[in-house]
């Protein structure tokens, strides 16, 4: 299962205070928690901080329970770090902040994810809320998620970020997790939704509404395989380009920018780093393969899957999609979430040549497609992941989208990298990656 967490698990058993050591060796710390966007925001912040600092420690691969956070340290042992950047699983948050005292906490959103672990959705935010109470920290809060913005009543130093209405916003949302006021439980009125319960809301009963933004993203456009938008920091406006799909990434960028400026970095530099950011770890990766592009995007919950499909519909190229659905413990053993996802938006995807289903529960995702009445194209089912990847890579299309669940991500990446090594294919912008690793 979650291989990146293993070394830390062993070490933590030997030394339960490892996290305390980690705490004292990092001069400053930021923790990122929430349901979706933790790993991307973590990687973005890490990348941005590297423009200013040499020693930044992170658990970049998304192993985010206590062991995973500790493994970051085991792979990289220095006496002192300028910054520690850690993404922390909501359930592990209370245990981790007992030892690791963050100067900043970024909270992305609370959606339905792996309920078989936490029980129910409201519990998840409560766990984080309670653990924050005794901490002295600055909160970077998603103003557009009522489940997150209600954290303002913890009376910490609060910084709010969000995304203004754009052409990607909708007036209605099929998958709405919690459209109820977290203060008085009345149902919330929405002016628009960006995704899930994220949007502009107001409670007609108690007046609970989006707090005023300190950082907001405006004028989002999609062109040339990238998202172009403006970041507005209390009237100061800058252009930003981000090469990864989806409105959810606008939120991730905004969170990373808000944190970085609060931490004292320069906006010019920050936006530059966002633009040259390269995802290297398979959760969301663009790889050039022969004369086609391969995009790997981790899917793990209904909101994520719905948004990924929506963002693919902005892409006009000839394409194939491969779903890989596993039900190992790290994926969530309950695959019912695919029925909460708005799979029906697949009908809006143009130039879709073929759809493939693989993984332990390939039959389930194929059945979901049948009930979305996706009958335009033949849906091919092959539980074997390697065979499916080979089939899809051989197809005559411009781009292949691979949407794996957690445990299939690294497997997918290894298979594709194995093929890459045998061909002339390359990772795009290889020079920039090397530059970012060794410095200019």
């Amino acid at each position: 299962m979650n291989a990146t967490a293993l070394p830390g698990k062993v070490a933590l058993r030997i030394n339960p205070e490892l996290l305390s050591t980690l705490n004292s060796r990092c001069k400053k710390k930021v923790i990122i928690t929430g349901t979706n966007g933790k790993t991307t925001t973590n990687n973005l912040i890490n990348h941005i901080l590297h423009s200013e600092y040499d020693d930044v420690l992170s658990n970049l691969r998304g192993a985010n329970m206590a062991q995973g956070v500790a493994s970051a340290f085991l792979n990289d042992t220095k006496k002192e770090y300028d910054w520690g950047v850690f993404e922390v699983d909501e359930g592990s948050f209370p245990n981790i902040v007992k030892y690791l005292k963050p100067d900043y906490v970024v909270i992305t959103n609370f959606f339905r994810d792996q309920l078989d672990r936490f029980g129910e959705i409201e519990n998840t935010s409560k766990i984080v809320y309670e653990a924050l109470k005794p901490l002295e920290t600055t909160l970077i809060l998603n103003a557009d998620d009522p489940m997150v913005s209600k954290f303002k009543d913890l009376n910490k130093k609060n910084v709010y970020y969000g995304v203004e209405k754009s052409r990607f916003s909708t007036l209605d949302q099929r998958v709405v997790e919690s459209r109820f006021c977290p203060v008085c439980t009345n149902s919330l009125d929405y002016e628009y939704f960006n995704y899930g319960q994220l949007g502009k809301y107001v409670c007609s009963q108690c007046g609970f509404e989006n707090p005023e933004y300190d950082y907001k993203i405006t004028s989002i456009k999609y062109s040339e395989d990238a998202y172009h938008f403006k970041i507005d920091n209390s009237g100061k406006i800058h252009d930003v380009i981000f090469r990864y799909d989806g409105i959810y990434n606008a939120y991730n960028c905004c969170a990373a920018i808000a944190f970085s400026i609060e931490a004292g970095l320069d906006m010019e530099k920050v936006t530059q780093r966002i633009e040259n950011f390269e995802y290297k770890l398979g959760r969301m990766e663009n790889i050039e393969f022969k004369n086609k592009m391969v995009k790997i995007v981790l899917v793990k919950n209904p909101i994520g899957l719905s948004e990924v499909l929506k963002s693919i519909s902005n892409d006009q190229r000839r394409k194939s999609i491969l779903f890989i659905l596993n039900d190992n413990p790290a994926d969530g053993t309950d695959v019912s979430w695919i029925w909460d996802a708005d799979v029906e938006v697949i009908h809006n995807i143009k130039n879709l040549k073929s759809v493939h289903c693989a993984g332990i529960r390939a039959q389930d995702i194929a059945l979901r497609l049948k009930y979305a009445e996706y009958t335009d194209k033949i849906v091919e089912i092959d539980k074997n992941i390697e065979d499916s990847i080979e089939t899809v890579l051989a197809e005559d299309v411009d781009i292949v989208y691979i949407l794996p669940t957690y445990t299939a991500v690294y497997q997918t990446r290894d298979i594709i990298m194995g093929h890459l090594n045998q061909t002339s294919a390359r990772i795009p912008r290889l020079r920039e990656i090397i530059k970012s690793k060794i410095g200019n």
Partner: protein
Amino acid sequence: MKINIFHMYPDLLNLYGDIGNITSLKKRCEWRGIEANIVDFSLSNERDVNDADIFFMGGGSDRGQGIVYSHFLKYKNSVSDAIEDGSVFLAICGGYQLLGESYIDADGNKIPGLGVFDYTTESEEGRLIGNVVIENNLGLKPKTIVGFENHGGRTYHSYNALGSVVVGNGNNGKDRLEGMIYKNCIGTYLHGPILPKNPHLSDHIILSALKRKYDIKELEKLDDNQEYAAHNNVLELYSDGRSKEQ
């Protein structure tokens, strides 16, 4: 032909993909040319419960179920009468518990249910989570029903069970029984969602509803290869070869 499917409190009771049951009922009607009218019944959309041919009620968070309980209480008698009269009702997890007399929480507090049936659910230590395979008591072929359970409450009753447990826990993890059947009302802990991978059960529900309105004995056959491929995949993965048939 036309049936009205009342989706009860979809904004409050909407856990674990249970909406897939509505999708299954709706599509399987439409594919046969039967009109399926979905009514989202909730606080802001109260409708005459006598118009329902099928009720579907899923589970929700504790808060959601609390709100539903206080609101739905006034419909208790009409729903009881409807069930007594043979209306079709599918209640899952929290919905199944809510139809009972009471729920006793971890601290021993008794939380009243609608009391349509006289069973009780007790909170016991540890959630029962995992894949489930049962053999159904409805006489449906294949015998197996597959699903996924995730509940902290244990339900004890002396009604007919929906089936006997082959894999998993079911009602309480003790008596090897899962769910309940009373006339055309089915209560169960099975998510998955239950209906898409068990098309025989989905059709049983549709046919039971149609029989009350129309002179009909059976449903037109559909191609269920994909449904049973997913069903059999669960059997292969989780039943260790037990209860395999077809």
